Structures are given as structure tokens and as C-alpha cells.
């Protein structure tokens, strides 16, 4: 079974249809780009998949669990990082790691082990006891990603993870995403940067609540006769 499966997934707010019968599947270990203009329904769709919102219709399975009835199981098996920075600034790096590990039910021994490994990978051993507020933004972002996958989820949802980060750090951040995907983690990522869309295995583009296109970046560019994802996106977003 694929890690994410949706069939005619719909969300209505009153008479407004935020997500209109979207159907797609994400393969294991895939980096799936979820694109769309602001207000196209990306966030709503993502919130339904994370168990934060109850769908109005259709079906969805995440990590093999039904998002209607098994939200607890869904939540245990996913990692999540939002566009807004998601660590506590007044806690130290280690305290943040311990907290997030703790609420996902990891034992202290496991957390200690993972903490030292993680800090080593990020080359932040010296900063372990510093408050997160004292770290540069790029570091925080990388740390937040590491914390989001601390409990070894099979799927990680990234909601515009690189907003406001410089290009070098963005590149490093994507290296981390690739590394996670290589370990078999499925990555579901929304972004506004079209160059980042090129890094994805497949991308879907949402327009007004519907998925208008879904394929590999290369195939999409051929289909829309353009050399950049930017071109694809603009044609879809404007061409109504």
C-alpha cells in the first residue's frame, strides 16, 4: 500500500470548496512536491492528511491508516514541519529535542542516543546547551527538520519549510531531505520556490481546489512546452 492515497478528497467550509475531490497517490521514499498559489487549497489538503481537519467527503489513507477514524495512528507515523518556525526559542537545543522526542513517546535512553547523533550530524555539538533563539535561522530550520523526523516517521510533511532562508542553506536543507528520502522516508513538501519543485520526484499543481497537473517535473515541462517549472506554473495558474 502506498504511504499516501486520496480518492476524491473534499473539504468544504460552508459553501466554499477549499479542496475539490483531489485524487493522488504518493510512492514510498518519494519526494512529492505539492504546489499551488496561495489559497489554492494546499494547506487545507495537507491539514486533512495530517489529521488536523476532518474531510467533508472522499477517502484518504496515510501510512495505511484512515484519516477519518485512525487519526491517532496517522499522527504517530508522520512528521510535520510548518512554514512558521516550530521550535521553542526559550528552550535549549537539547531541551527541544528531548521535548519533541518525549511527546512522541520515545524513551529517555533513545532520546539521549538520538540527540548526540543528531547534533553530530548537524555539527552543533557545541551549541547543544544554547537557547534556540541564539541560533541563526538556517540552523534552526535544519534543526527543526531533524526534530520532525526524530521519531523515524515513514512520512514527513513539510509546509513551505524553506521560507525566508538564504539559497545556500536552502540547498543544504534539500540535501537533508534527499538523505531522508534515501533512508526510505516519504517526503510531502509544499513550496513557493519553483527551483525547489525541480528537486522533487513528482509534483502536483493545485488551482482553485483541484489538482490540475501531476507528473515528474521533466514530463510537465514537455507537456507545457516550456523549459522551467516557473513556466508550467504560470500557464496553469493563469490559463483558466
Amino acid at each position: 500500500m502506498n504511504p499516501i492515497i486520496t480518492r476524491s478528497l473534499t473539504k468544504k467550509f460552508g459553501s466554499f470548496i477549499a479542496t475539490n475531490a483531489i485524487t493522488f497517490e504518493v510512492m514510498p521514499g518519494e519526494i512529492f512536491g505539492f504546489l499551488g498559489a496561495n489559497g489554492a487549497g494546499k494547506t487545507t489538503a495537507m491539514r486533512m492528511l495530517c489529521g488536523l481537519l476532518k474531510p467533508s467527503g472522499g477517502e484518504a489513507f496515510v501510512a495505511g491508516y484512515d484519516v477519518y477514524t485512525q487519526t491517532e495512528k496517522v499522527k504517530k507515523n508522520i512528521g510535520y514541519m510548518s512554514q512558521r518556525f516550530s521550535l521553542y526559542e526559550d528552550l535549549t537545543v537539547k531541551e527541544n529535542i528531548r521535548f519533541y522526542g518525549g511527546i512522541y513517546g520515545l524513551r529517555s535512553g533513545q532520546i539521549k542516543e538520538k540527540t548526540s547523533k543528531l547534533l553530530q550530524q548537524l555539527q552543533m555539538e557545541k551549541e547543544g546547551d544554547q537557547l534556540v533563539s541564539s541560533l541563526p535561522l538556517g540552523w534552526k530550520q535544519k534543526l527543526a527538520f531533524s526534530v520532525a523526523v526524530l521519531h523515524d516517521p515513514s512520512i514527513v510533511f513539510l509546509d513551505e519549510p524553506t521560507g525566508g532562508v538564504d539559497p545556500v542553506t536552502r540547498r543544504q536543507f534539500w540535501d537533508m531531505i534527499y538523505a531522508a528520502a534515501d533512508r526510505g522516508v516519504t517526503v510531502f513538501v509544499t513550496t513557493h520556490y519553483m527551483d525547489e519543485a525541480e528537486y522533487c520526484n513528482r509534483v502536483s499543481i493545485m488551482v482553485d481546489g483541484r489538482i490540475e497537473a501531476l507528473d515528474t517535473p521533466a514530463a510537465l515541462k514537455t507537456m507545457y512546452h516550456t523549459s522551467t517549472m516557473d513556466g508550467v506554473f504560470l500557464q496553469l495558474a493563469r490559463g483558466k
Partner: protein
Amino acid sequence: MRQFFVFVRKEFYHIFRDRRTLLILFGMPVVQIILFGFAITNEIKGARIAVLDQSRDYYSTRLTGRLTASGYFAVDQYLQNNHELEAAFRAGQIKMAIVIPGNFGENFFHHRSAPVQLLADAGDPNTATTLLNYATAIIGNYQQELNDQMKLPLRINATVTMLYNPAQKSVFMFVPGVMTLILLLVSAMMTSITITREKELGTMEILLVSPLPPFMIIFGKVMPYILLAFINALVILAMGTGIFGMPVKGSLVLLLAECVLFVLTALSLGILISTVTSTQQTAMMASMMGLMMPTVLLSGFIFPVESMPRPLALLTNIMPAKWFIIILKDIMLKGAGLKDVWLPTLVLAGMTLFFLGISIRNFKIRLS
């Protein structure tokens, strides 16, 4: 359970790292109690008065002596004539003046009537009224004492006893009031701020995506504040009884249990506020304007409910603080037991459930 413990520990980190808030939390009750206890008092002690005694006989001198002996008044100056009165008030030195016309004793015993004039500075009407009442009472007593010697046959003697607070100490009023205010502030305002802070920072989303059940997130957030508020209640009680001699005539256990109940009421209000606001700023404003102001004005803490116009007096019934102040006073001053304060207790418990119910409903609406 372990997850919950992890969560509460994180909350304590937030609280202890935020020195300024911590200072407010624990400094405020101390400062408020001292302010209300010592500075803001409506008791009169040694109010300065001027005496214009035109008879200067044995009886008039004793009358003046009576006023000063009460401790409420102190003679600031003796005046010689009427013209000096105005000047004395203008100088702002005196609050009241007593004018005793000539032949005071003679008038009293032979003409059966001796006028005395009291003048008070009504620029501050409350003080003026209190001073006049005290002075009238003292003069009345003096008159009866003189009458006793003359053995008048018929008269009505009113013996006044002030129950539960014989010395009429205003601190007996302020300790319950301040306690209510502080508990409300710590519990309602702090929780609404701490919950909206998670929303504002975006960490609330992360928490909701985690396997922690929503009620555990909320409970974990308010748990430390239950503890802090309770410590504050203890500090205020200790200061009230230790420094100001406030009695606790009823059961201390019942008193503390009622404190916990009120803390829960205030917390549920805080949670309710946090479900309808999304930033710390609005949460703070909502707590301040929506809770603190009405509480100060309508709980009977400063302005007696009895003297409010009917619609306002009815409105006071929806103030949780009003009921808590009633409970506090009954237990501390009258030694009331649970069977005496069951009604306000029930009201508070009902309010708590009501607020929690609405919060849960709001929360569900947001999720679907």
C-alpha cells in the same frame, strides 16, 4: 502519562526562563496586599481638625477632649474667630472643624440645647461623611453621659455591635478582594496568554499534529498555573493573617479547596479566551478588559453591590469573583462551613463546567 510529564516540564521551562513574568507573578500579590493593606485604606486615623471654642468652659473642653481621645481626630490648631476657619480649610491642613458657641455648658443645662457646628471638607465626600459620622457619634455619647447625671426618665438607647469585623478594618475587605483578583489574573490571563503564544508561534500546530491528545495539551499548559495560583493564594493568606491579623475562623481545608475551585473557574475562562483569540496581545486585552475591569468594578470588592442600580446589581451575579469573595468572607470571618457556602460553591462549579463546555465546542468547530 510520561508524555504529559514531558509536556509539563517544558511549561515550567517557559515560566522560569521568563524572569519578568515570574517577577510579576510572585511580586504582584505581595505588593498589592501591602498597598491595599497599608496605603489604600478607608479607615480614619488622627484626622486633623481645627477647634473654634468660644465658650472655653469645663464642658466644651471635655467635648474636644472626647474627640481627640477617640484616636480618630487630632487637633491641628485652635482658632480664635470665624474668619480663621476659611483660611484653615484653604491651607488644606484640616479635614474638619468644630465650632462651639459661647456658654456651651450653661446653654446645655439651662436651655436644654447647646448647638455645635461641624464643618467638613467635602472636596473628598467619602472622608467628609465618615468624619462627620464619627464626630456625631462621639458627641452623641457625650450628651448621653451628661444626661445620665441629670436622670432623664425616658430615652432609647441604641447599642451598636459590629459583627465579624468589630474594628471595621478595611483590610478584611481587601484581602479577599486582592486574593480573588490575583488568582483570576494568574489563572485566566496567564493561561490565555500561554495558549495563544503557542498559536502565535506556530508550535500549536506541531503539537496538534503530534500524538498528544488535544485535552492533554490544554491540561498540560494549565497545570503549572494551577500550582502557581495556589502558591499565590497561600502567600496572600499568610500575609493577610500574619501581617494584618485577618482571621480564618472556618476550616482551612475548606478554604483551600474553594481556592482550587476558583482557580479552576478562572482557568476555564482563560481557556475560553484562548479559543476565541489568536494572538497574545488580544488575549491579554480580552483578559484585562473582559475580566479584570468588570471584576474590580462589579464583584463587590471595591463598590458594594447593595448600592448599585438594580440592572448592574443583577449583572454582578455573572461575575465568578463575586461568589468567590462571598465564600472567602464567610469562611474567614464568619467561620462558615460547606453547608453555609454550598450555593456560591455550586455556582462556581457550574460556571466552570459551562466555560469548559463552550471552550470544547469552540475547539471542535475549529477542527472541523
